[in-house]
C-alpha cells in the first residue's frame, strides 16, 4: 500500500512537470473568451464570435487594412463600379484555392450569394435587401447588380455574409455544420463543440501566412472562469469579456498587458412610440433628462465605457453630441407641466434581457430605474425576458421602453441612423418612429456621395433625433484585451475584427 502511494506521488510529479513543459512552448497562443458561437457558416453567422472566427478562416472580395476602415482588395484583384452605382464587377486573383484544394472562382461566389438569400438566415437581409442578381462572367469575373444605388455596399462585401463557400461541401438548401472549408489565413484543425477550437495555418491562403502555427480558442461559460484562467496562466490572452471590475484589476496587475480600443458597439433605450405614454415626445424628453451617463460609466462599468450623446458613436465620422446631460430639474418641470405629481406619478416599465448583454445588464437597468425615480415623479417597474422572447416582444410591440445594443454591420454613419430612424426600418427596431422630414434627410444622405455633404445631412439627422427622442443613447463600448506580456501582434481594430493570424509570442 505504501509503495503504491509513493509511486503515485512520483507519477504525479512527472505529470506536473510535463504540464509545465507543455505550457511553456512558443508555438501557440491560447485565446480565452466567454462568447459563444453557434455557426461557422457565413450564411448563418451573425453574432460576434461566429463572425470573428469566420473573419480569420475565410476572406471576401474585399477586406480592410488592419487597424483602419480602409477597404483594399481581398480575393478580388480589382473591381469596377458603374456610374449609376448599380453594377459591381469584380476581377478575382488567379489560382485561388480553398483549403481543401477546390478552386475559389466566380461560380463559388455566385453560389454563396444565392445560397445566403435562399437560406434566409439572420444576416441574409444584408445581401437580399440590396442585391438584385449576381452573374458569372467567367471563372474569374463576377458581377453584382443592385436594386438601388447604395454607397456603403462595398463595406457589406467585406462582411462575412458575402464570403465565398465551396459549392461541393456547403449544401445549397441548408446550413452547413461540419468542419469549415477555409479561404482565409487559418483552417479549423480540431473542434470540440462548446469547449475549444484549434486553428492551424491554411496552406492555400493567398496572403501573408499566419504568424503562429496554432491558435487555441478556449470557450468559458462566464467571466469568472475566464478571469481565473487568465490569472492562472491557462490562457495567453482574454478577449471578450471580463467583468468591468476584473478588467480594472488586471490593468493594475503588472503581470499582464492590457489593450483598450474604441468600439462602435453602443447601448441605448428604445421607446415604442406607438405605446402609451411613450407616444408623447415630451415624456421621452423628460426621461432623457433624467439619465446620468456618468453614474453608469463609473458605477457599473468602472470607467470602461464612454457616455454617448448621439446615435453615431465616436470614431465614426459625423458623430456629434446632441443629447442633454442629466438635468433633474428640467425633467421635473416637464413632468409637472404634463400634470404628473408625487401622488400621481408617471408609471413606466423598463424591459431588459438578462444574459444577452452580459451580467451587468440588470445592474444597468436598476441604476436607470433609480435615476428615473430620483425625479420623484416617476414610478419605474423593471421586467425581463430572455433574448429570443425579447426579440419577438419588441417586434410585436409588447414592450414600451426597453434596452437594446447595436453593433454595426458596416462602418458608415448610415448604419447607425437609417435602421433606427427611417420610418420603414424603425418598426424592426421596436420603435415605430416615423417623421417625414427625417426620412427625407436619411434618403438624401444615401444618395449624396461627397463626405462633406453627407456630414451636413447627418448633423441635421442627429439634431432632429435629439428633438424627437425616439431613443436615448447611453454609452459606447470599449474593446478590451488582457494578455501575457509575451503575446505580440494584438491589434484592436476600429471595425472590431480581431485578427488571430497576427498574434505571436515574443
Amino acid at each position, binding site marked *: 500500500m505504501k509503495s503504491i502511494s509513493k509511486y503515485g506521488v512520483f507519477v504525479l510529479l512527472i505529470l506536473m512537470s510535463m504540464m509545465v513543459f507543455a505550457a511553456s512552448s512558443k508555438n501557440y497562443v491560447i485565446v480565452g473568451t466567454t462568447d459563444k458561437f453557434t455557426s461557422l457558416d457565413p450564411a448563418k453567422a451573425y453574432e460576434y464570435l461566429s463572425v470573428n472566427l469566420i473573419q480569420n478562416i475565410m476572406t471576401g472580395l474585399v477586406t480592410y487594412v488592419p487597424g483602419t476602415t480602409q477597404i483594399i482588395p481581398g480575393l478580388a484583384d480589382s473591381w469596377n463600379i458603374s456610374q449609376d452605382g448599380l453594377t459591381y464587377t469584380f476581377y478575382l486573383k488567379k489560382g485561388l484555392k480553398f483549403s481543401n484544394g477546390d478552386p475559389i472562382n466566380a461560380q463559388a461566389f455566385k453560389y454563396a450569394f444565392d445560397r445566403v438569400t435562399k437560406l434566409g438566415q439572420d444576416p441574409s437581409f444584408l445581401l437580399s435587401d440590396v442585391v438584385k442578381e449576381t452573374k458569372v462572367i467567367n471563372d474569374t469575373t463576377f458581377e453584382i447588380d443592385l436594386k438601388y444605388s447604395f454607397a456603403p455596399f462595398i463595406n457589406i462585401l467585406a462582411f462575412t455574409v458575402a464570403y465565398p463557400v465551396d459549392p461541393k461541401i456547403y449544401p445549397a438548401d441548408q446550413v452547413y455544420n461540419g468542419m469549415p472549408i477555409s479561404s482565409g489565413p487559418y483552417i479549423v484543425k480540431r473542434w470540440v463543440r462548446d469547449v475549444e477550437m484549434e486553428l492551424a495555418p491554411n496552406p492555400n491562403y493567398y496572403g501573408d501566412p499566419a504568424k503562429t502555427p496554432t491558435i487555441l480558442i478556449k470557450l468559458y461559460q462566464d467571466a469568472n472562469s475566464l478571469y481565473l484562467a487568465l490569472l492562472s496562466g491557462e490562457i495567453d490572452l482574454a478577449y471578450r469579456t471580463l467583468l468591468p471590475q476584473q478588467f480594472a484589476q488586471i490593468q493594475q496587475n503588472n503581470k499582464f498587458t492590457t489593450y483598450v480600443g474604441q468600439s462602435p458597439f453602443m447601448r441605448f433605450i428604445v421607446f415604442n412610440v406607438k405605446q402609451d405614454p411613450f407616444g408623447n415626445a415630451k415624456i421621452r424628453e423628460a426621461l432623457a433628462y433624467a439619465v446620468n451617463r456618468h453614474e453608469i460609466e463609473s458605477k457599473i462599468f468602472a470607467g470602461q465605457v464612454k457616455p454617448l450623446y448621439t446615435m453615431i458613436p465616436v470614431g465614426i465620422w459625423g458623430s456629434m453630441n446632441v443629447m442633454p446631460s442629466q438635468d433633474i430639474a428640467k425633467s421635473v418641470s416637464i413632468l409637472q407641466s404634463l400634470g404628473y405629481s408625487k401622488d400621481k406619478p408617471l408609471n413606466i416599465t423598463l424591459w431588459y434581457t438578462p*444574459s444577452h448583454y452580459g451580467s451587468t445588464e440588470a445592474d444597468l437597468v*436598476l441604476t436607470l430605474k433609480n435615476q428615473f425615480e430620483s425625479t420623484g415623479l416617476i414610478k419605474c417597474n423593471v421586467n*425581463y425576458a430572455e433574448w429570443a422572447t425579447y426579440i419577438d416582444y419588441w417586434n410585436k410591440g409588447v414592450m414600451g421602453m426597453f434596452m437594446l445594443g447595436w453593433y454595426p454591420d458596416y462602418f458608415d454613419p448610415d448604419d447607425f441612423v437609417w435602421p433606427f430612424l427611417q420610418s420603414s426600418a424603425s418598426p424592426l427596431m421596436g420603435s415605430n418612429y416615423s417623421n417625414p422630414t427625417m426620412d427625407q434627410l436619411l434618403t438624401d444622405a444615401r444618395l449624396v456621395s461627397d463626405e462633406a455633404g453627407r456630414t451636413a445631412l447627418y448633423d441635421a439627422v442627429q439634431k432632429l433625433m435629439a428633438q424627437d427622442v425616439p431613443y436615448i443613447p447611453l454609452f459606447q463600448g470599449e474593446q478590451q484585451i488582457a494578455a501575457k506580456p509575451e503575446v505580440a501582434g494584438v491589434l484592436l481594430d476600429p471595425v472590431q475584427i480581431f485578427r488571430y493570424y497576427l498574434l505571436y509570442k515574443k
Partner: protein
Amino acid sequence: MISMEIRKGIKGLFKDSSGLMAFIGFMILIFYIIMAVFAPFISPYNPTQPSGPSLLPPTISHIMGTDNLGYDIFSRLVWGTRMAFAIALIATAIAAVVGIPVGLLVGYVGGKTDRVVTMIMDSVYAFPGLILAIAIAAMLGPGLLNIAFSIAVVYIPTYYRVIRSQVSTVKSELYVDGARAIGAKSSTIIGSYVFPNVLPSTIVIFSMNLADSIMTEAGLSFLGLGIAPPTPDWGYDLAKGQQFILNNDWWMVLFPGIAIITIVLGFSMFAEGLDEYFNPNIGEKR
C-alpha cells in the same frame, strides 16, 4: 386543563433529540417569520434602492455590507424572507391542495383508478424535480405565481403517495369497516376516520416541502428563472454575488447563502423532529 395538555406535550418533546430538533427548527422558523412580518421595522434601508457606497464590506452602518450597486445586503436579506415564505407557501399549498384530495380519493376508491393514477404520480415523482420545474418555469416565464406553480407540480406526488398509502392502510382497518357497516357516507368516512389519521404525516410533508421549495426557488433564481429584480430574493442575490467572488467580495455570497441554509435547516429540522415524534423508528432496538 388545556395548559396541562400542552405542558405534557412540551415535556414529551424534550425527552430526546427528536424533540429538541423540532424545537430548534421551530425557533429558527419563528425567527424568520418575525423577520418577514416586521421587515419594514427591522431593515435599516430600502432594499430596492442604493443606500451606500458599492461593495462595502460589513461595517456598523451596513452589517452585511453592500452589493455592487450599493444596496444594503442585510435589508435585502430581511425583505427576501418574505419572498422565500411567499413562494414556498404558495407552492406547497398548491401541491397540498391537489395532492391530498387526489390521494384521499384514489386511495379510498382503489382498483384500476388507483393503479393508473399511482403510476402517473410515481412517474412524476421519479422525474428529476428541478429539471421539471426548470422546464415549466421556462414555459411560463418569470413571475411569482408562475414560479410557485412550477415548484408545486414537482411536489404533488409526495402528498399523493403518502396520503394514498395511509388511506389504503386505514381503509382496511376494522373501524372503517364498522363505520361503513352502520351506513356512514364515504365523505364522512374520509373526513372523520381517514383524514385525522393521515394528518400527522401531512404536517411533516408540508414542512419538508417548504424546505425543498425554498431550495428549488433558489435554484431557479440562480439559473435566471426567478423573480425580476430589484425585488429582494435570496437566490438572485446569491447568483449575483457569484459574479463578484473573484474580487473577494465574500459577503455577497456568504449571507444570502446562510439565510437559505438556515431557513431550510429550520424547516427540515422541524419536519424531521416531528416525523420521529409521530413515527418513532427502530432506533433503540438493535
